[in-house]
């Protein structure tokens, strides 16, 4: 029987992670993400998992990567400034193809900014924060229930694609408490990483299987000897300067995800069928947007709602199709325009875009978005 809980968003991510089989957490406290670490500190030792508070965020992600290399499903969690600090080693995890879940509970920036206020200013950092190219998978939940669910999905994707997966939450969601119906174990899938079946001496840690273009991964300590490096490497895992090997490796970092784009992309819509205006929003803002859209509908305005649940890869094609039909988009964000760039790129001029920025530490109110809808509808 599904259990009902009244959790904080942060706790829900932690509980989702535990449900997904996460047994390693390395991190460093920072508002408004600290509760994730705190729940893990209490739960992991009780599950024979490993919790360690490291000396800083850089070490936090490094330890988590280490935990993953040694065979655990691993996570780290942080907020803006810490997310910036984690970028270098996040890059290592992409390059070395180490499964990992990284949570960023967004707060106001830049810099120390507004530690206890909501913002959505790390959307682009999630995609582009580290040097060098790689594909990004980033979830943006908008309810405490969904925090639990995307945590499970994030681990599944991380283990499947052997790479870091991000969860972009925000201060309101992270600190909000909300009813969660904890699903029964049978109702969700758990993906574990693919292990090699070959003899240790012929194990090639970066040679993708032909069926799925994804390489299996051994753990340190389970009988395989292999090399991990942040240098560009060949299929054996050793550094290479051979242009063909380089191109093969780096292209695979993009392709392994791009090829499965449709398995990954997730979004939610409401009332888009006949909409003349679509409000595109994510995270906590999407809740306001939905309120506003429903209010507008109740006033007879043909307005729809589009919410990317996965921010990266961005649901560009899907949005483009809807945008073309509707003709007008409104994109409210708690930043000076981040996702809107991606929206603009996606729709190729086929819809007019109205951007709404709010950067004052607060969440949009439904009336603010409703007003904009009415203005655009006029």
């Amino acid at each position: 029987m599904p259990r009902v809980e009244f959790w904080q968003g942060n706790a829900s991510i932690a509980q989702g992670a535990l449900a997904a089989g996460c047994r390693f957490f390395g991190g460093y406290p920072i508002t408004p993400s600290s509760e994730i670490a705190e729940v893990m500190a209490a739960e992991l030792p009780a599950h024979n998992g490993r919790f360690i508070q490291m000396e800083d965020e850089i070490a936090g992600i490094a330890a988590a990567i280490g935990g993953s290399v040694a065979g655990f499903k691993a996570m780290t969690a942080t907020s803006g400034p810490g997310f910036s600090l984690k970028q270098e080693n996040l890059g290592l995890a992409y390059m070395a193809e180490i499964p990992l879940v990284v949570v960023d509970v967004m707060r106001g920036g830049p810099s120390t900014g507004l530690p206890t206020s909501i913002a959505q200013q790390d959307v682009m950092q999630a995609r582009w924060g580290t040097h060098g190219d790689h594909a990004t998978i980033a979830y943006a939940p908008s309810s405490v229930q969904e925090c639990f669910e995307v945590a499970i999905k994030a681990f599944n994707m991380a283990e499947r694609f052997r790479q870091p997966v991000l969860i972009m939450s925000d201060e309101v969601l992270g600190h909000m408490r909300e009813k969660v119906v904890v699903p029964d174990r049978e109702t969700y899938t758990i993906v574990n990483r693919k292990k090699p079946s070959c003899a240790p001496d012929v194990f090639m840690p970066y040679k993708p299987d032909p069926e799925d273009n994804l390489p299996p991964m051994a753990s340190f300590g389970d009988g395989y000897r292999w090399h991990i490096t942040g240098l560009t490497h060949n299929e054996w895992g050793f550094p290479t300067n051979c242009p063909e090997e380089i191109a093969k490796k780096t292209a695979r970092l993009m392709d392994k995800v791009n090829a499965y784009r449709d398995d990954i992309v997730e979004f939610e819509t409401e009332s888009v069928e006949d909409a003349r205006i679509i409000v595109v929003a994510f995270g906590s803002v999407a809740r306001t947007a939905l309120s506003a859209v429903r209010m507008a509908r109740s006033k007879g305005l043909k307005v729809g709602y589009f919410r990317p649940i996965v921010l990266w890869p961005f649901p560009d094609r899907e949005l483009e199709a809807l945008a073309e039909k509707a003709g007008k988009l409104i994109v409210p964000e708690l930043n000076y325009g981040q996702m809107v760039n991606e929206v603009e790129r996606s729709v190729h001029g086929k819809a007019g875009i109205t951007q709404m920025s709010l950067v004052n530490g607060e969440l949009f109110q439904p009336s603010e978005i409703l007003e904009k809808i009415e203005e655009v509808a006029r």
Partner: protein
Amino acid sequence: MRDRYEIRFAGSGGQGVILAAVVVGEAAAIFEGLNSVQTQSYGPEARGGKSKSEVVISRGSIDYPKATTPDLQIILNQASCDEFIAQTGKGGIVVVDDTYVSSVPETEAQVFSLPIVKTAREKVGRELVTNMVALGVTAKILEKKGLMKAESLKQAVLARVPKGTEEINEKAFIEGYKLME
């Protein structure tokens, strides 16, 4: 019930308004099978300054999570009263503490000035349980509105408070409940 019922607790840091809202949310979600969302505002002024916590309950889904026009406000200090009373929703109720709120600005809302702090201090013997008294008051109001059984709220209180303190908290809750009689 309306689609959405918004409750706000406001006071100074240390009066336990956040916990109060959490307990209401828990009662709604776990003991009543309703939907509920609780939010709060943090900020450097949290220490000793104004503190505010809200809970929205609904049979349907709750999108916007914060209170815009609270149906019920329980206000435990003057500063909060001055700032928040005007936001009360149409037909809403405001309960103020009669020790710390001396003047209530003009409002269309129904206002009850109750000895919440005094009850905690004098009847229960510990100002610390002010929020439990406030929850008792809340329970009565929600019961009257047909939104929630007082028993659910009491159970939620007992599930939350530290072991060994059940009795004193229950007492506070009951005294609060009686205040609205």
